């Protein structure tokens, strides 16, 4: 890729997930969305007690089971087979979303199509005209969690920015995102705009701004 030729290496999916995991402290109750966010669980060290929530009624979700130890009755919100940790519990769907909507989660990590500089998030549909519509629990999580972090590629596959002045896709929720983790940088959404927390080695502030529609500032 030309990016490597320019003297920096973007993070892969695993690298992005590991970068998010670094910032999750012990004791937090966390929901991880579908896609890269799900991978974050693999990078939280087992001795750090972070309690994972899954929308279908699991608190204390554990990693994928060992081969031949799968429990067909235990799936996560992506319907992948998972495990439950000692101390875990099951609730019904309304109680599961009371956990979400009642503000009990410390953090939700979501994937995104677009994030605006004011924290607006679009992550469920690329057009209001789409027949296929997959909201799932994203709107509830975006509104209900204490913090919403988004993890996504910095630009689209064809190089267009995803971090915008205003989202052009249908919104998941308004002004909900507090932090963005991309393959190039970590950005905080503050009352004074987007602040660059860190970047991959070799990437200059100007290089990052060139790939971002919204105006950035140094933290």
């Amino acid at each position, binding site marked *: 890729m030309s990016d490597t030729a320019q003297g920096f290496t973007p993070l892969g999916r695993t690298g992005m997930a590991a970068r998010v995991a670094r910032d999750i402290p012990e004791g937090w109750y966390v929901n991880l969305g579908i896609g890269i966010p799900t991978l974050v669980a693999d990078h939280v060290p087992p001795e750090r007690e972070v309690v994972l929530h899954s929308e279908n009624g699991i608190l204390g979700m554990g990693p994928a089971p060992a081969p031949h130890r799968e429990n067909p009755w235990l799936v996560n919100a992506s*319907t992948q087979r998972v495990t439950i940790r000692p101390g875990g519990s099951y609730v019904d769907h309304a109680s599961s979303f009371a956990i979400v909507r009642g503000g009990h989660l410390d953090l939700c990590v979501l994937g995104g199509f677009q994030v605006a500089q004011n924290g607006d998030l679009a992550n469920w549909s690329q057009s209001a005209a789409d027949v296929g519509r997959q909201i799932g629990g994203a709107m509830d999580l975006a509104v209900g969690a204490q913090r919403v972090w988004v993890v996504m590629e910095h630009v689209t596959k064809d190089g267009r920015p995803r971090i915008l002045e205003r989202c052009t896709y249908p919104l998941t929720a308004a002004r909900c995102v507090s932090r963005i983790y991309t393959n190039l940088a970590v950005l905080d959404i503050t009352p004074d705009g987007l602040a660059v927390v860190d970047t991959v080695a070799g990437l200059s502030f100007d290089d990052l701004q060139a790939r971002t529609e919204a105006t950035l500032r140094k933290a």
Partner: protein
Amino acid sequence: MIDKFVRSIAEAMNGIRDGSTVLMAGFGEVGAPHALLDGLIEQGATGLTIVLNAAGRAQKLGEPVQGIARLVELGRVRKVITTFLRSGSVAAEAVKAARMEAEIVPQGTLAERIRAAGAGVPAFFTPTGAGTLVAEGKEVRDYGGRPCVLELALPGDVALVEAWAADRWGNLIYRDSGRNFNPIMAMAGRLTIVQTHHVCDLGQLAANEIVTPGIFVDRVLHVAAGDPKLPR
């Protein structure tokens, strides 16, 4: 003597009318009352409104059309109320061809609308969906400085539920993530029909462990359905 057990699928599905709203539990393949859905397909009611978390996966060529996709294919569904309408599914194609309506709802709002119906709450305000397509045509009010959307309770004429074990009073327990929508749909159905893997004598399910008390349950059918399949 109270005995909510029925002996056949036909008896379980008896009396479901055309135009009914049917709540269907399950998340992925887990806790989904597949035998009762097959029974509904057989029973013949039409013009149905079906409420379920996900309206089927993308249909692959040569693969049998089953479950909700089959019910839609037969033209028996007027409307689905769901959180996932996937492109390429039989349901999405029916919506595209204007043969069926779809209402796409945030999952927490769906669960709360069902819970509210079971609890006698006719409507509630929630910040979920405010400022999005979900709020279109709905009343919005500010509470605590946040815009909130008015959402209506979602009762079922019928609820289809899968339990792990049941007794003749209709007391139910669930297994692992098979609980999901089952307890709240059982509460919100005017006619709640249960398929259960195991049958217990009265008193065998301890009062401390019963999740759904039998007051919410009308009919129970013993279906040893086996483990849920892995999703494709």
